[in-house]
Each structure stands twice: as C-alpha cells, then as structure tokens.
C-alpha cells in the first residue's frame, strides 16, 4: 500500500503533463540539499521494493477550456449585455478595457479562470464535481481490502480554492444519500495549501466554517476532515495577500509558513519557486515521510544554502520589482474582494514579465 498525494495546479492553461516539473522538483530536492534518509530510501516516493507514496496530479481546467471554445472575449460587449440585462458582472472587466497589452494577455491566459470559477456557479459546480470524482477514483481502489493509506493534498493558487471547495463538499455532503467520503468516514492526513486564495474566492461552503480544518481546531474533531493543515505564503506574492488565510483557534494541527521572502525568480507565485524553498518543502517531506526524512541539522544547512543562493543579477530591477509588489499587495489587501484579487493577480504577472524582460 502506498500513500497518496494529490497535486492540484493553479490558474492558467495546463496540459496533461503539467505535473512533470513538480514531480521532477520533488525528486531533485533530496539530492540538491543532501537529505540523507530520502536519498538512501528512494526519495519521497520510496523505492521500487518499498513504495511509500503515489503522487497523483489532478486537473480541472477542462471546464474553462470548454467555455473558451464557445465564447469570444469581447469584454466590453459582455459587460454591456450583462448590464442591459441587469446581471452583475464584476467590474474587473471595466478595468480590463484600460489594462496594458501585457496585462491583457495574462488575464486571458491565466486569470480569466479565476473569474469563471468565482462568478459562474455552473462552472464552479462542474469543476468541484470533477475534482471530487477524481479524488474518489483514486481513493476507492487504494482503500480496498481494508487498506488505510495516508491521503494528502497539495494545492496551488486557484487550486487551493477549488480543492478546498471539493473537499468541503466531499466531506459534508452525501452523494445521493451515500456518506462514504464524509467526515467521520474519511480523514485526510495532510493538506498543503500554497499561495492560498481560498478565502478571497470563497462562496459556499465558507472556508472557516467547512470541515476542511484540523482535528485540533476549536470546532472539534467530530467533523474534522484533516489531521494537519499547512499554509505557505511568500511575502512578495500578492495572490494570497487579499483576505489572507489566517484561521484562529486551529491548534497544533495548523502550521503557517509565512517567512518565505527570497526572490530567486520574478514570478514568486510559481509553485516550483515555493517548493524550492526548504521552509516549504521540509515540512511537506516530514509530513509525508516522517521526521526522519530531514534531520534538524539538514534543515539548518538547507535553509542556509537556500538563503545564500544568488538573487537575479539585475539588483536595481529586483528592488523595483519588490517595491512594486509591496505597493500591489497594499492596494490589493485594502480591496479584500475577488475583483481586487483578480486585478492584482493580472498586474503581478505583468510586472513579473516586465521585470524579467528588463533584466535581460
């Protein structure tokens, strides 16, 4: 029996092999940082004769692609039509008409998915159902013959919201009368949320009212769906800055890692940029493989090595980028609504692209 780690992508276009680079990162890190036990035992997944973990990539962006095939992108016409028909469409479309070309591009390649997921409940339900089914498709056979695999999920960006919602419903809503995957009958070992936007995009179930909380939360263990919940946030990442994730009274089962601030690439929101930081991957490795996976001494060495890694060479551009990010985060934080998050996300991606171009 191998344990299961479901990995869910963020916004943007993802092909069938989207998780290959994530898997490669997981496999590379023990060598990069010299984690002895992991190196000697086949890495986080284990060896062929002692398989410990199956990493299962999940995807939900097919839902958005289907609409992309049906619709055009005339945002002005969309907004005017909606207005004439008394339908509330977020003012992000008005902002888009004034946006730069780079911002425009990133909106249509990445951020439009966020808008679709948050504001069109038919799209929301479609994505949530597909994710629930994808989870069940793997969990059910893994638990045959009385097996009890440890089940973990790792979600990034928009994926944190979709995964939260899917888990919250799987854990609290009978499936046509069937309670098999509900809290009390299924318990996840670990939830890793990276650049968590589940709060700003929340609809129903509400994030802090759902079953997706650790057993140690004040609301009690009876309906808890998770043993341990980890939240990772980078200082210069504006995505999780709008309505940041900050539960109260979740106890020892909740771990917040918010001291990531190294900028080793301009797109600090990138999943692999997060995973490369030992402050992020060490808690994940330990949760998945046990405390032996990385010793305290190895942790100290890894953090020192990571912090000594040179930042991008064009320091002026880096400082300008950091200042831009701080300003963006300040503006976005004041907004505290999904529209602010969507605009901040688009502006961030454009700023990262511009910083990269200027650096070369």
């Amino acid at each position, binding site marked *: 029996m191998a344990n299961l780690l479901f990995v869910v992508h963020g916004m943007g276009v993802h092909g069938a092999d989207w998780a290959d680079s994530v898997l490669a990162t997981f496999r590379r890190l023990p060598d990069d940082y010299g984690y002895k036990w992991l190196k000697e035992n086949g890495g986080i997944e284990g060896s062929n004769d002692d398989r410990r973990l199956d990493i299962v990539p999940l995807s939900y962006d097919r839902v958005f692609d289907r609409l992309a095939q049906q619709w*055009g992108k005339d945002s002005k016409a969309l907004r005017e039509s*909606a207005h004439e028909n008394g339908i509330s469409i977020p003012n992000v479309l008005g902002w888009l008409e004034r946006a730069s070309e780079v911002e425009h591009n990133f909106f249509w390649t990445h951020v439009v998915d966020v808008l679709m997921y948050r504001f069109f409940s038919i799209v929301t339900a479609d994505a949530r*159902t597909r994710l629930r*089914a994808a989870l069940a498709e793997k*969990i059910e056979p893994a638990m045959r013959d009385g097996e009890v695999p440890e089940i973990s999920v790792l979600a990034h960006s928009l994926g944190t919201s979709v995964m939260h919602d899917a888990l919250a419903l799987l854990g609290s809503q009978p499936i046509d009368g069937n*309670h098999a995957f*509900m809290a009390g009958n299924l318990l996840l070992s670990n939830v890793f949320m990276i650049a968590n936007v589940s709060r700003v995009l929340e609809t129903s179930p509400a994030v802090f009212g759902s079953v997706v909380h650790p057993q140690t939360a004040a609301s009690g263990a009876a309906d808890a769906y998770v043993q341990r919940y980890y939240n990772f946030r980078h200082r210069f990442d504006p995505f999780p800055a709008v309505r940041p994730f900050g539960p109260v009274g979740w106890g020892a089962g909740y771990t917040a890692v918010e001291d990531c601030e190294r900028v080793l690439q301009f797109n600090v929101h990138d999943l692999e940029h997060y995973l490369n930081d030992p402050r992020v991957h060490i808690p994940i490795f330990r949760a998945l493989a046990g405390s032996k996976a990385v010793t305290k001494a190895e942790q100290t060495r890894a953090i020192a090595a990571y912090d000594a890694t040179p930042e991008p060479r064009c320091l002026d551009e880096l400082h300008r980028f950091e200042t831009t990010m701080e300003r963006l985060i300040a503006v976005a934080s004041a907004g505290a609504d999904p529209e602010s998050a969507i605009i901040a996300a688009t502006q961030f991606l454009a700023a990262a692209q511009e910083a990269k171009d200027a650096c070369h």
Partner: protein
Amino acid sequence: VGGALLLWSVVARPTTPEEDCRLTDLRSTIRRAPAAIGAAWLPRVPDSVYAHMRGRMASNEWVFLVDSIRRDFDAESAPIPPGDRLAFARELDALRGELSVVMSLRDPAERRNNAVGVRQVRFRTSIDPDTRDATIFAATGDQITLTTSTDQDVRRALCYRALALDRMLSAYGAPARLDAREKLEEAVAEWDAYGDKSYSQYPWELALNSARFDAKAIHPPRDQIVLMHPAVSLELAQRPGGTGPAIENLHRFTTVTVEPVGYISYRTGYEWYLGASLLVSIPEKELPLGAGAMAHIGQALNVGYVFRSRDLAGNRRDGIIVSADLLQLFTSMPKLWRENRDRALSQLATPIP
C-alpha cells in the same frame, strides 16, 4: 556492510512511535528488520490480526469481531496507564454500540452501503512529524498520546490494535466507497453530456442561469433560461406571389434570429432536452421582421415559425426557421477567445525566470 545489515536485522532494537503506530513505517520495519519487532509481537502486528479477521468480516460478523478484540484488550498484560486503558475501552464500546444499532435495523446492508451509523475513522492514529508523538482519538475526551518515553509494549498494545481496527473499519466502508465513486463518475458523465450536448449559452445566459443554480450541486442544472440568444438560422419563406406550402413556392435564405426569452428542460442523462422560446427573425433582404416561437428538441432539432405582417401586395410571407445552434456561426466572436488566448500564449512562450 552485508554482515552489519544482517546483524541489524536479527537483533531486536527499540522502535519509535512512528514505527509502532504508522502503518507504512511498521510494514517497512517488518520487511527490513523483523527482529526489531520481536517474536512475541510479530503475530500481533495489525496485518496479521487483520488476516485473521477476514472470514468473520466476509460473513458480516462485525460485532463479534469487536467483542473479541475487547476481550483480548481486557486481558492485555502491557502496563497501559489506567486512564488510557479506560479511554481505549470506551472507544471500543462506542464502536460496538454503533455496529449493534446498525445490525439490529431492518436494513443493515443498506446502512453499510451508504456508510451511515458507524464512525469509520474512530481508530485513526496521527503522528506529529516534528515530535514523533503518536495520538489516538485526537482532540476527543479519550485522546491518548504516545511518545518516545512511553513503554514500547504499551505503544504496541494500543497502536497495533488501533491499526487493526482501522483496517477493519476500512473494510466495512468498502462497499459504500465503491458506490459513491460510481455515483460521482455518473455525475461527471452527466457534466460531460451537459457540456457537449446542452443548448449553448452566451456569457449573460450563463451568468443568469448560474445565479439560479447552487454551486454545491453534484449534478448539472435540470433546466435553463434562454435570454437574448442570437443565432444564424435557415429560413424557408414563401416566394413573392407564391401560394400554398409546395416546396417550389418556398424561398430558402439565411437569417439572423434572436430568442428574447425561452426555457429548456434537460432529460435524464443530459443527452437531449425539450424547450420552447419566443423568436424574432431579422432577414437581411427585402423581408420584414418576423416574430413567432421556436421548439427545441435536443441539439439536432430547433424549429420555429415566424409570422409577418402583409406586404403592400397584400401577401403574408410567414417563415419556417431551422437553427442548428451552432454558436460559432453567429459572428467571429466565438473564435476570438481561443485566438486571443493562443496569441497571448505565444507572446508569453518564454516562462518568467
């Protein structure tokens, strides 16, 4: 190195809470260094106990199994602290109570198949990755914490039983998980059909229909409102001066139609639908605007009829409308999304460093 490994595998050594209480680690220890478990405990490891339970589980003797474990636990000689012994016994009794209730009902199989009435994760252990402590019944009044300083026999007496019971309850829940999985797969098939075979929606229609749909639903919407829905359709109207419905009297041309409002109802499986809507036809040429209604019977058949006022010669040229609901025929708008996305992607082909 080989000799050292052999020596390590045959000499008993203290195990950690992780090795005693985490099934993955325990199995790894059994495989690599069974001597670390010791001859006295090897027959009592969870997988061995579970193997002995198979026959009783197959004949649905769940209460019998819990009673057996309870008797075995009462006779346990390991020095379990009295508080922990009581807590574990209470949880065993709670499980027995739940199973007894379910088994005494008229439909125990249905209860089991729907996973109702028995808390299946009751005996799930939790390992703290930093302290290595193991916890059973976490955050309940019966919480038991086992640390490196806890007597090894106590850890095993509690964790081995908890793991075996966890496996037993997983087996108990298997039929319900299979049923739930199949139901979710059916729901995804419905969403696929809904995506492929539903009546198309413009953004404003999707917004309107989303506003009246619960995002927590598993199944797609059962109905759909049509609102200001434009399309390019085929119209068959009488030729000027023609009389009667004979085919030679009909003039075929392309027309822009708009459905101001309508209603669609999806049938079981979402493979097809029935619906009706008001209809306006706006021909490009000499014909005046026509108004009528359209019937929708799946994607294949969208047929309408429009009435027109009499022309100067006193003829009324009503028309039959056939629409294929091909959204992309309306304007260049549908392809724009994809084109712009593709263009933007090509411009952003180089990842941000």
